[in-house]
């Protein structure tokens, strides 16, 4: 097992990893930017190194400085968290080359799976159901029109290197296709340095269902059932839950098997997520693989009782999984609310000084945050200030607990989306069960209307 791990991240996920390390008896090194010197992740770690100024590109994403920090502190491994360097194949590769374990998949896995068009082609070849779409990136405008015609409108243009909704365009009419492809290409080139795009059929009311996977170096792959992340806005997840109210036992088993097939087809290892798009008939399609631990991993931990971060560390250290698929049982239900520092009207990040911060407690409530009783939300990073997870024996109890916990949550000094979460959880459609990825947009449109 590792003796010392550097956490190449900040905020709640850095704390999350430090907690796992402490529970495993592993020493920790925090890195931080100049504005994060007093952050909780710095205080909780055994050692800490400043790696650059506030801007993430110059600090948390600064590969030479992060690796130098690992070198001078003598760590065995680096946990990248999510965001920053978590899905940077080059970073994983350099770690491998200097003999520091990157806690995650190999650089090859990241490279293959982060190219969405390539991943799509790979999965299609392996018999995984993918969304009807183009084979590979679009080149010839005429060919593009032909493919779209065959798929039927609406179609969606997606960047191969994309993520988080950038480089995406929905096209409803043939005459808009050329323009959409061009602007998506431009956006993708700007954002990711690679302008390749591809086409897929666009589903209007889909559900976002993803399966949590863990794979060891011995070739064992298990899934931890699904998360339903259909409550989104601009491709940003807002509320996640597990299990999904949209799946029955048969569909759950089937999708789980496909998810494992996806990961086995690339000989995956460590934690990853297979994302599916599902229509309202229960048909599902592979969307992509996230080659990192995700924000919403906590809901899976609540319903399976497994500590996914500790599993990541154990697997990275070469230990085989200590359980089989049949040992992973769903027990109860969990809902996660991402609490963001944001303007409730415009839903834009809203940094500032938190003058009072008091988290809810009691049965079934878990809060992951890097805010103390007060704190500062700087404009440099993610606006998420806490994850609130409500667990219950069934969905109704989980929902009731999450709602009462939202009422207890005190955040003063800045604006937050707590009221929005209340509206979501109070909504009859959400209470009834499965919603589509357009649910939240509709809710917000109704408000402004």
């Amino acid at each position, binding site marked *: 097992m590792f003796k010392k791990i550097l956490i190449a991240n900040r905020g709640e996920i850095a704390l999350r990893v430090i907690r796992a390390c402490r529970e495993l008896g592993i020493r920790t090194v925090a890195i931080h930017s100049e504005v994060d010197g007093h952050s909780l992740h710095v205080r909780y770690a055994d050692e800490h190194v400043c790696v650059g100024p506030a801007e993430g590109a110059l600090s948390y994403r600064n590969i030479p400085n992060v*690796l130098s920090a690992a070198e001078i502190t003598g760590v065995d491994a680096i946990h990248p968290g999510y965001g920053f360097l978590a899905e940077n194949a080059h970073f994983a590769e350099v770690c491998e080359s200097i003999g520091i374990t990157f806690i995650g998949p190999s650089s090859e896995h990241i490279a293959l799976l982060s190219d969405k068009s390539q991943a799509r082609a790979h999965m299609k070849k392996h018999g995984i159901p993918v969304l009807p779409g183009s084979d590979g990136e679009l080149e010839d405008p005429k060919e593009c029109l032909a493919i779209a015609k065959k798929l039927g409108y609406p179609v969606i243009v997606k960047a191969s290197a994309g993520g988080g909704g950038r480089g995406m365009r929905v096209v409803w009419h043939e005459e808009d296709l050329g323009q959409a492809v061009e602007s998506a290409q431009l956006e993708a080139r700007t954002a990711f340095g690679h302008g390749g795009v591809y086409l897929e059929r666009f589903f209007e009311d889909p559900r976002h269902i993803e399966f949590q996977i863990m794979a060891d170096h011995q070739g064992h792959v298990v899934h931890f059932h699904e998360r339903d992340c259909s409550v989104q806005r601009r491709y940003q997840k807002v509320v996640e839950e597990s299990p999904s109210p949209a799946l029955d036992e048969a569909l759950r088993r089937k999708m789980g098997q496909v998810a494992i097939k996806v990961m086995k087809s690339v000989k995956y290892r460590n934690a990853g997520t297979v994302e599916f798009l599902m229509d309202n008939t229960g048909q599902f399609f592979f969307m992509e693989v996230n080659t990192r631990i995700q924000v919403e991993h906590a809901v899976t931990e609540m319903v399976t009782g497994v500590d996914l971060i500790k599993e990541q560390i154990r697997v990275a250290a070469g230990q085989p999984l200590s359980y089989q698929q049949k040992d992973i049982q769903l027990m109860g239900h969990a809902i996660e609310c991402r609490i963001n520092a944001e303007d409730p009207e415009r839903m834009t990040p809203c940094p500032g000084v938190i003058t009072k911060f008091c988290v809810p407690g009691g049965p079934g409530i878990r809060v992951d945050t890097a805010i103390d009783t007060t704190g500062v939300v700087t404009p440099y990073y993610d606006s998420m200030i806490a994850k609130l997870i409500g667990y219950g024996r069934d969905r109704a109890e989980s929902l009731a607990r999450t709602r009462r916990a939202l009422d207890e949550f005190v955040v003063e000094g800045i604006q937050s989306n707590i009221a929005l979460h209340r509206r979501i959880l109070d909504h009859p459609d959400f209470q009834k069960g499965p919603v589509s990825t357009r649910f939240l947009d509709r809710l917000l449109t109704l408000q402004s209307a």
Partner: protein
Amino acid sequence: MADSSRREIEDIVELLNKYHLTELEFEKKGVRIRVRRDPAPTFTSSSVEAAKPAEASSASSPQPSSPQFSELSHFLTVTSPIVGTFYRSSSPDADPYVEEGSLVKKGQVLCIVEAMKLMNEIEAEADGTVVKVLVESTTPVEFGQPLFLIDPL
């Protein structure tokens, strides 16, 4: 002095001015704060001149600029631009690039910070005298860590 400390002091002075205080103490750990505003002075003279408002008087009174402060404040602090290991010389046998008291020219190599097997030479940003070497050779340094104090010419 680190830039952040300097900023902090300037902030305090600004608050003193803003609220027309005569005294403002502030401590960080344990958060001790002390503010004081003396009532306007007692005037025995008829000259209104002397009775200028507290604002002006407090602003002009010699505040935190203690002698040490003003001396320190004009030194240049050379900080590490990268994370790595600090070396005062090019090899274990070689002489240090600079000593305390050395006169240095802008661009002159002051030390090396090794990172990922690369030797990064850190240069003086201005002509001056090395007042203080702040880090021992072969010590790991983080980004922004003060390495030298330079008294600029």
